[in-house]
């Protein structure tokens, strides 16, 4: 019942719809641009300065997978608003009066954010793959098995990032603080932590999982997500609402 109520709440504010629309748009545009770059390099061999492969074709999976790192920001916003908007508006007090068992509230919010972003993830993966196909033109390699697999990986990755954001939102309460912390952990750490330690950072590990189906990357991201959710639970359980 708690999750059903959270599901109603999620889809009855405009911000959710805006975030989904923004993430799909970001995904499609980025994938198309990346594909277009690849084609440009092939068609203008004289201008190519830094082509890193000699390949003359590209799988549509590659630009799509690479676009997730940008499209994820709209998904992070959607997920964290599930909880931070309740703290900023005071609605959390209504929520906790209706369901005073706070762990149940947090789990319901995480589950609803995960389910919604998994679904949105499939949609935006398809949008990214189509845009990649469009951008790559005759240089595209289409393997439906690969495409389906990457779509599921993108959806799983985004669902995990959503739960990560909900946990962070419960721990920090403020939207700005939550967004900053998620960005630092997901993006910032990958840049400052040297290899090979960086492979254990959530952003890098998640990227490896999306691009290559790397199972250890998925496990590392799951562990990070679990840790942040536990921190969120520790705060929401103890602090006054």
């Amino acid at each position, binding site marked *: 019942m708690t999750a059903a*109520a959270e599901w109603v709440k999620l889809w009855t*504010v405009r911000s959710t719809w805006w975030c989904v629309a923004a993430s799909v748009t970001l995904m499609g545009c980025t994938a198309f641009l990346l594909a277009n770059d690849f084609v440009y390099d092939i068609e203008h061999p004289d201008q190519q300065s830094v082509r890193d492969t000699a390949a003359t074709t590209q799988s549509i999976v590659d630009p799509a997978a690479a676009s997730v790192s940008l499209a994820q920001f709209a998904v992070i916003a959607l997920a964290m608003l599930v909880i931070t908007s309740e703290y900023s508006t005071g609605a959390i007090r209504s929520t906790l009066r209706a369901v005073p068992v706070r762990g149940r509230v947090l789990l319901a919010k995480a589950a609803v954010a995960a389910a919604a972003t998994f679904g949105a993830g499939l949609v935006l993966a398809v949008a990214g793959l189509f845009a990649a196909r469009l951008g790559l033109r005759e240089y595209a390699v289409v393997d439906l098995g690969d495409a389906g697999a990457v779509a599921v990986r993108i959806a799983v990755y985004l669902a995990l990032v959503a739960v990560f954001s909900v946990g962070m939102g419960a721990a920090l309460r403020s939207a700005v603080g939550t967004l900053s912390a998620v960005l630092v952990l997901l993006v910032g750490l990958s840049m400052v932590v040297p290899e090979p330690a960086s492979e254990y950072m959530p952003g890098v590990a998640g990227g490896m999982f999306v691009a290559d189906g790397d199972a250890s990357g998925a496990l590392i991201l799951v562990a990070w997500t679990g840790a942040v959710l536990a921190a969120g639970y520790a705060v929401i359980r103890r602090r006054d609402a």
Partner: protein
Amino acid sequence: MTITVTGLTKRYGATTAVHDISLRIAPGRVTGFLGPNGSGKSTTIRMILGLDRPTAGSALVNGKPYAELKNPLRTVGALLDARAVHPGRSARNHLRAMARSNGIPERRVGEVLETVGLRDVARKRAGGFSLGMSQRLGIAEALLGDPEVLIFDEPVNGLDPDGVRWIRQLMRALAAEGRTVFVSSHLMSEMQQTADHLVVIGKGRIIRDAPIAEVIAGSSTTAIRVRTPDAEALRHQLAAATIAVSHTGPDELTVTGAQIERIGDIAYEAGVRLHELSRRDASLEEAYLELTAPSVEYAAPAPGESR
């Protein structure tokens, strides 16, 4: 259903917001919870509702802590700050989500919106509501689960005179149905017309917990007015009986802290002719100011009074 508060205490660092209060809030009547701003009313209510964790003591609803109630909205309805709704969500959708979380049938949403007079704006976003409309939405939320216990924190804030009268009648009706109604206010006049029983709080401590008539009668500002052509003689007699005379005019006295019969007897024994002997009841306002004067948190000097 009874709310039982035992030794409830809330400290924030060095400040004690609520200091060891114990209360029994009974069904079938309106219990007013009265105190100046910052006296601990809202903190007490939040602890009863399980939103704030007490430093010590307990608050039980029907013998259980709030957090252990199953589908709590069906047992306790509450109005806290009226603006506690996501401004982007419509009134109807807010209530639909609340109903679903407690297994309350969806038709109740329409019923309570009708009750509070928000049916026409049910699909409008709550962010555009006036304070009075937000207050009505909060009341709709409180009524949603048809609960036996109702807690209202400053319900008349922002309501127009019609709204004030409406909520007064609503609270009376809910109590008449045998429900437990607990309502906080810093407005005396409101309590005087609504409450049966009064709990007065100041600086986090219970100052008074009694039926409203008793609070008024027990006030030292309940005075007796005596008119007599022989005021000086009577004043001497009363002073001899250690009865305080607060005011002396050429032919009248104001006496406090004594029964009216006693004054009549003294006058009779002294052979003093009386033209009037009458009781002047304090208003709740006066009784309240007297009770809470030592515990007002943010006192301003009276106009014209120098610091």
